[in-house]
């Protein structure tokens, strides 16, 4: 196995996701298949090749420090499942 069930559980909890044990079995197997497929890339010899973070050569895209109005509070709240007094309402975490 490329990935253990414990690792999958750990990543799930970091992502605030919870799974039933049987779901965890399925997901672990699927992730394992994906990792095996991706592993093919390791067959290439990349010694001496600089790591690339972006697919193109562009550098230095900047904005000037100028303020622009974007959304009203109503618009900002439009997608919120729950809101109160112009604020997003969420379950308490701590």
């Amino acid at each position, binding site marked *: 196995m490329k990935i253990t069930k414990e690792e999958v559980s750990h990543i799930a909890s970091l992502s605030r996701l919870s799974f039933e044990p049987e779901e965890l079995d399925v997901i672990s197997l699927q992730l394992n298949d994906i990792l095996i497929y991706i592993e093919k890339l390791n067959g290439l010899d990349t010694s001496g090749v600089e790591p690339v973070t972006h697919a193109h050569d562009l550098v230095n895209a*900047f904005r000037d420090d100028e303020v622009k109005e974007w959304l009203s509070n109503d618009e900002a709240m439009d997608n919120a499942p729950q809101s109160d007094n*112009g604020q997003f309402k*969420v379950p308490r975490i701590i």
Partner: protein
Amino acid sequence: MEFEAVIGLEVHCQLKTKSKIFCSCSTDFGAPPNTHVCPICLGMPGVLPVLNKKVLEYALKLSLATNCSINNRNIFARKHYFYPDLPKGYQISQFDLPIAEHGWIEIEKQDGTKKRIGITRIHMEEDAGKLIHDDKRPLSYVDLNRTGTPLLEIVSEPEISAPEEAGEYLKVLRELVRYLEISDGNMEEGSLRCDANISIRKRGDTELGTKTELKNMNSFRHVQKALEYEIRRQTALMLDGQKIVQETRLWDEAKGITLPMRGKEEAHDYRYFPDPDLIPVEISAEWIDDIKNGLIELPAQKRERFKAQYGLPYEDIRSLTASRALADFFEECVKKFNNPKKVANWIMVELMKLLKQDALDIAQCKIQPQHLAELLLLIDEGKISGKIAKDILEKTYATGRPPTDIVNEEGLLQVSDDDTLYSVCKEVATENPKEVDKFRAGKKKVIGFLVGQVMKKTKGKANPKRVNEILIELIG
């Protein structure tokens, strides 16, 4: 057994740009919740963050001012954690290639000696939003106005060995960001935030002990007190043969103690990776030179120059260079009234007293440098007494009227005309026969009282030196 503390500080400094780091929303404080937001800082899918050039400039300024080496290539990274103050589920930060590394700043220790504290790295990142927790129900309310406000994180080497040194380090850093005008540097208001890593070890040991991370300190004093407490706590555990647990602890100001942060302490597992939305930044040598050439005189250099140029005592120099505006005020004033020591005294005593009363900053003060110079010249020429000058300074402070105008309009010119002075002195001598007798009997100190009476009658406008001479002539 003697222990020593090993302290490293992580400071977050909010930059005072007009707009956020990756979008054009305003960074102003105090707006109604979620009114300075846009699809980018709300974390909507499909948006494209673009770096604010000013943030980079400010970062370069601080990097140069802290003697760091600047990385020519910068990459932004995603730091993942799930918390409602962070709508994207990750914070855009820097990881492998921060803007600057390997710098130092110099602090002054209690005994006056200097010490260099290494700067491990400085990187750019975005601030998170604000949560307000409901006190009755298990709910939180999220305001994302602050999300995306630019921050610099400044990480020190673990080279601080006492709480006072930590306080000094923070003061030097605050002074720097204020001189550079890149941040308000206000800890109470959150524009400067500090977390501390601290461990202790037997004096002389080279290996580091287990550290704890301290958070929730909102002033320099809190930082020092929290570190002092933590040193005592860790020392007691060590002496008791117990293990120190690596954990995050929160400073509780009311109780004066640190407490472990509640909730499950997840090992930091941020899954950093380069942010594909932000293309790399390449900083040319010319650009660095430009910033370097445009860099203002830093506090340490200014203090050296003040010493050489004005020959003032060290304490005076420290007070006068506490802010750039104050130092400029002093220098402007000396240009017009070339007596540095006198100017320094008047600024540090009289002017500071007035500013302190109203908790004002020199920049908000109605007294201009030429006003003070004018006033000192009036004293120097014997036109007004020191006492009258203080009254005039208060009036200029309140209204911004130039001292010369006040003197002319209110007839405050010192009376040096002998006829007037003789007649007032005679009056005072007649009205105070007992004191005159005492003086004649050899109690020379009484003269001070009589001079005071003359000053009272002339509303402080008499020239005290001349009054003294005349009185002695009359009754001696």
